[in-house]
């Protein structure tokens, strides 16, 4: 018997207003960029993004100091009637990661998307900066909203910001890729919406925290879980719904590819975490977790193998994203397994999130590096990369560092993430995931090695670069790659940020 949901005794916490500011700042940026127009769009972005970084840091600090989730009741109304913004450890980390990567991308792209002098407004730069701010706003909304319908709107925002970034250069292939991306995104949204409808029909609320207490193992919940998960998987491009991603991410301008691969797919992945671990921890069966991770394993293998066959660097990196997304889903059966053994699921959750953050920083650096290589050589054919090592030493180092982070060498975040996931796999006796992770690591190291080796080949005749890349752009890429390489040092932090606000989940699965 489902009781009517009562008002949740939640109140706005001390730092709660930071959540409002973090949510609204990017949207104000978009509005300002649109109204002021022209070259002001870039100025608005360069002002807003550092400010947003400060806000995200403040949220992290506040969360760590109070060791509680930050909450803000919008309009003063508590759920189920109203909507709440929540920032637990997961949200705070993702907000900070987003802000850092966007700052790096903004610095990288600053010169690339410059309005030509004498023109009041040019389409490509104006749209790039506006869309960058738009993407930022949608991501913050995904990380902060506590209501499933608000999250639906945030997902639509994410799609509308990502699709035009893909076809910013308006070539036919990119338009096709953008259309395919949009259709997959719409399919995902409509399935997600359908699941939300069923949840409301059964429980009378869409608030995440309230639903966690109300959801029972019954047909409506199972159907909703299945529908919403499939929808989110379409948006996250998990195998076999990954076909839209490689052409889309490879066809976008380098700075846009960085944002799309690093951040956009993490938004929908974040919602899978919310759904599986926060809304329905007791409903999702262990078998479902194994199934999801099985698709992840397939993604790792297929993505890496196809990446090895690529002739172009950007396509290789895009297929690498398909593979790395597979890793993210290994955390689910591991978390379920740990909970079933009455152990805290910290290693699995922290491992999954760290994998996401590590991939985000490394992949952004690699895409930006590929952009610099393209600008210098005039192409990005892997077979003809010889000599790039001499011309762009910092970029090549960045590529190697980023690749090492993906492979999982210490002290990279990828290493720590895989270590946590491997230990969780061994603890729960799910040794087959160990095999998958090791195989994936070997395949990843293969193509990183190939690219770096090709680029290090010295040529006698010095290629004249198509464009001399300013050193500061290389420096930004190297800085981001170094960050991804050193993320493993996060293990030394005194506080496990990810665990702030995490409820101890019920034992997963039916009795």
């Amino acid at each position, binding site marked *: 018997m489902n009781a009517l949901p009562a008002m949740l005794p939640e109140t706005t916490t001390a730092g709660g207003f930071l959540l409002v500011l973090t949510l609204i700042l990017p949207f104000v940026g978009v509005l300002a960029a649109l109204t002021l127009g022209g070259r002001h769009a870039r100025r608005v972005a360069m002002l807003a993004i550092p400010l947003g970084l400060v806000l995200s840091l403040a949220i992290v600090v506040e969360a760590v100091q109070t060791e509680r989730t930050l909450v803000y009741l919008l309009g003063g109304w508590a759920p189920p009637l109203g909507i709440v913004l929540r920032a637990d450890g997961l949200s705070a980390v993702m907000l900070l990661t987003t802000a850092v990567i966007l700052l790096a991308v903004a610095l990288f792209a600053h010169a690339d998307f410059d309005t030509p002098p004498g023109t009041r407004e040019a389409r490509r730069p104006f749209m790039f900066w506006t869309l960058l701010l738009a993407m930022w706003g949608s991501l913050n909304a995904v990380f902060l909203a506590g209501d499933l319908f608000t999250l639906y709107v945030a997902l639509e925002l994410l799609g509308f910001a990502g699709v035009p970034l893909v076809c910013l*250069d308006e070539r*036919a292939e990119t338009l096709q*890729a953008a*259309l395919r991306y*949009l259709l997959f995104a719409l399919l995902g949204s409509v399935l997600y919406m359908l699941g939300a409808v069923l949840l409301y029909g059964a429980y009378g609320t869409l608030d995440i925290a309230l639903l966690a207490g109300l959801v029972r193992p019954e047909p409506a919940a199972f159907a909703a879980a299945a529908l919403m998960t499939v929808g989110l998987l379409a948006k996250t491009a998990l195998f076999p719904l990954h076909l839209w991603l490689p052409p889309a991410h*490879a066809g976008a301008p380098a700075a846009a590819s960085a944002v799309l691969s690093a951040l956009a797919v993490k938004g929908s992945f974040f919602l899978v975490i919310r759904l599986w671990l926060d809304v329905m921890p007791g409903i999702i069966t262990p078998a479902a977790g194994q199934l999801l991770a099985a698709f992840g394993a397939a993604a790792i293998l297929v993505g890496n193998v196809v990446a090895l066959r690529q002739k172009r660097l950007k396509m290789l990196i895009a297929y690498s994203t398909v593979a790395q997304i597979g890793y993210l889903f290994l955390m689910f059966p591991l978390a379920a397994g740990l909970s079933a053994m009455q152990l805290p699921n910290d290693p699995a959750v922290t491992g999954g999130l760290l994998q996401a953050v590590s991939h985000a920083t490394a992949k952004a650096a690699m895409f930006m590096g590929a952009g610099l290589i393209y600008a210098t050589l005039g192409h990005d054919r892997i077979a003809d990369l010889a000599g790039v090592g001499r011309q762009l030493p910092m970029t090549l180092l960045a590529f190697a560092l980023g690749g090492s982070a993906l492979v999982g060498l210490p002290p990279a975040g990828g290493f720590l993430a895989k270590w946590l996931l491997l230990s969780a796999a061994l603890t729960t006796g799910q040794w087959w995931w160990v095999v998958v992770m090791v195989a994936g690591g070997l395949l990843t190291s293969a193509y990183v090695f190939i690219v770096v080796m090709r680029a290090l080949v010295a040529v006698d005749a010095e290629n004249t670069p198509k464009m001399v890349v300013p050193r500061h752009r290389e420096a930004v890429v190297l800085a981001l790659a170094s960050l991804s390489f050193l993320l493993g040092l996060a293990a030394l932090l005194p506080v496990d940020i990810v665990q702030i606000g995490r409820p101890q989940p019920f034992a997963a699965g039916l009795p």
Partner: protein
Amino acid sequence: MNAPTLFGLCGAVLVGLGLYGLVVNPQPLRKILAFNLVGSGVFLLFGVVARRGAALGMGGDPVPQALVITGIVVAFSATALAVALVLRLHDLTGAATLAPADADEPPAQ
């Protein structure tokens, strides 16, 4: 069998019908139309949920009704973007198809 249940079944059929149309129609515009069918079916289901929540003199639970209105507008904006993409693709290439992307073919960047 009462009215809400009847419309609920109608919504369910519309969702299935739209999915069929999505898979079967090769033209992108028809796919977009099929999407709208699925979306409207989902919203109809939401409306049924609202009607079942009628209480206290209100004909239905106002929260789902409000969400449906938001959803209809969002769906329209998605349709507008999709149509604009299809038309632009058609202007550029003379055809509007989603021919499978050749992964190895280098786009002329």
